[in-house]
């Protein structure tokens, strides 16, 4: 075999704009769409609803939107972990309701301090997740069935904990209610967070790039980094500006953002996260690489149960009560839909926790826009269903083109 100095199969990164466009075209063709479809979808949804009702993009509506996404969004973060394994957690909604009930009983009926009650409620969620994980990883029951059984059982547990009344009101000025009703009024809070995020991103990019340059491996151009930083800055400071027009930075949104960034770091930058992707990609390869597959599986279900509990606590906080309806009806389906709409694959091995944020923004925007229009629930469900289907179709097609893009 003769060896030419430049192999034609190499993807040559050109410099400048043509290089970017070529790279972009290659990625789209190869099915590596990333968050692009959902971001475009979100912009379209916002433009449509804004044209229908000028109240949609008002500071108040967007500020409320940013808090409304948090409870289900937190559940969705846990769902992303499970989806990365290529599994499903149908019990997340029931776990969130049960844990909200546990919190309300401990805090209100038994007079426990809210901090301790929250801790115990999350611990209950972790234990319920542990039970799912044990039966799935150690006994070998399909996750679909385990969590379906869990869904039924924990719904019953929720009703039993709540007792005959069925609803426990949380003090509306209490700590728990404060989780979703606290706003940092000072403008410096929202702008400070935006500045911190942008500066952090820029610092990490520059340091990483310098290390890559020093190591002699491909690195981004400075223009590329500046471009990315500017895009992030526009989004971050734009959001901060709008939040400050209303009541400032919501505490719930801050917590949600910290959770999303933190879990994304764990998934992409630690050995544990890498192991989750490996198990989701090829179990046999993961096992041969020495990864403890049962441990990964159980731990992921524990994470899912814990985030379901946290989500349930925020749901209870939002309406200042835990009731039989908390975590029921479509909460679970919305959490799964958000993860998938945001770009996490149902087939395992591909996704990020940012999809929980982006997907919930899409779903909640539709709900909010429809509510402003006075459209009934029936239409809202149908539209959300269509968006979910579109997301799964994009996922399936991009999977197929990823296979087809293999250069043989």
């Amino acid at each position, binding site marked *: *075999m003769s060896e030419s100095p430049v192999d034609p199969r190499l993807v040559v990164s050109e410099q400048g704009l043509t290089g970017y466009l070529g790279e972009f075209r290659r990625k789209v063709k190869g099915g590596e769409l990333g968050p692009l479809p959902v971001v475009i979808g979100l912009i379209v949804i916002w433009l449509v609803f804004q044209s229908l009702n000028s109240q949609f993009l008002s500071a108040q509506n967007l500020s409320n939107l940013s808090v409304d996404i948090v409870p289900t969004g937190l559940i969705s973060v846990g769902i992303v972990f499970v989806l990365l394994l290529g599994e499903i957690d149908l019990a997340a909604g029931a776990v969130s309701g049960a844990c909200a009930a546990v919190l309300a009983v401990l805090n209100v009926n038994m007079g426990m301090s809210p901090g301790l009650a929250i801790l115990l409620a999350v611990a209950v969620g972790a234990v319920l997740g542990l039970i799912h994980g044990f039966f799935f990883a150690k006994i070998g029951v399909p996750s679909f069935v385990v969590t379906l059984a869990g869904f039924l059982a924990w719904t019953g547990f929720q009703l039993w904990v709540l007792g005959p009344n069925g609803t426990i009101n949380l003090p509306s000025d209490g700590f728990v209610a404060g989780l979703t009703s606290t706003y940092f009024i000072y403008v410096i809070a929202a702008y400070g967070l935006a500045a911190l995020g942008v500066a952090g991103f820029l610092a990490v990019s520059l340091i990483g790039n310098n290390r890559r340059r020093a190591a002699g*491996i491909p690195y981004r151009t400075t223009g590329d980094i500046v471009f990315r930083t500017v895009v992030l800055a526009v989004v971050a400071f734009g959001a901060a500006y709008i939040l400050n027009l209303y009541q400032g930075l919501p505490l719930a949104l801050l917590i949600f953002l910290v959770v999303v960034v933190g879990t994304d770091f764990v998934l992409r930058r630690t050995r544990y996260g890498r192991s989750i992707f490996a198990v*989701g990609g*090829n179990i046999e390869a993961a096992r041969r690489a020495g990864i403890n597959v049962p441990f990964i599986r159980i731990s992921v279900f524990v994470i899912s149960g814990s985030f379901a509990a946290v989500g349930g606590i925020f749901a209870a906080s939002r309406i200042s009560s835990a009731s039989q309806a908390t975590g029921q009806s479509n909460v679970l389906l919305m959490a799964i839909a958000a993860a998938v709409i945001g770009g996490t694959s149902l087939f395992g091995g591909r996704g990020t926790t940012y999809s929980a944020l982006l997907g919930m923004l899409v779903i909640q925007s539709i709900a909010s826009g429809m509510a402003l229009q006075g459209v009934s629930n029936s239409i809202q469900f149908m539209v959300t269903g269509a968006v979910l289907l579109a997301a799964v179709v994009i996922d399936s097609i991009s999977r197929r083109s990823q296979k087809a*893009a293999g250069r043989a």
Partner: protein
Amino acid sequence: MAPVLALERISKRFGAVQALTDVELEVDAGEVVALVGDNGAGKSTLIKVIAGVGPPDEGRIMWEGRQATIATPSDAQALGIATVYQDLALCDNLDVVGNLYLGNEMTTMGVLDEVAMEKRSRDLLETLSIKIPSVRIPVASLSGGQRQTVAISRSLLGDPKIVLLDEPTAALGVEQTAQVLDLVERLRGQGHGVILISHNMVDVKAVADRIAVLRLGRNNGVFDAKTTTQEEIISAITGATDNAASRRSRRLSE
């Protein structure tokens, strides 16, 4: 000097089946030994013995002149034996670097050191003259031959003395087979001992120094690849040499 790996009178039995009987095999550094045989000849069983997946019932394994025990896959790895199985066991969703370092990730303070891993991956692939579009694309979008080279490179990260390749060219096209055979020659050039299991006589003749034939769980000759014809090897595999005349001459020589 003693060979790196020497198997002496290895026997293995599964219930009523005598899978291996008194098998001998020697591999030196910088040498490609092809292991050939018909289906059921005991190739896979012998691989498992060397890789530590199925320890032998009888016989000795000598490593650099000293007796060694290979009871588990990690024993084999600790000695310096790397195995690349036929089903490559790569994670399609991870990129090349992720696959190369899977289970052995480099970290600094608990955080994956992607820069160091990418640097070493590129160096490794470069020394092996492996051409891959980018070390940062998912393995799913690589061709069969490229996937095979990634799997082989992965086995080299621990700097093994012996590399065991199980049917590396099965299911590959002409051009891709050539890539993999080139890689086998480079492994030899770098002083690795290679055991190559293959059904393809052309491949075997092309890269092997010696060809060990197994037949019905026994050695059926070790041939010099340069001086032996393909027909001679095939007749050793099929047992065509095992006729009355050859038996008589063997008996007379004893």
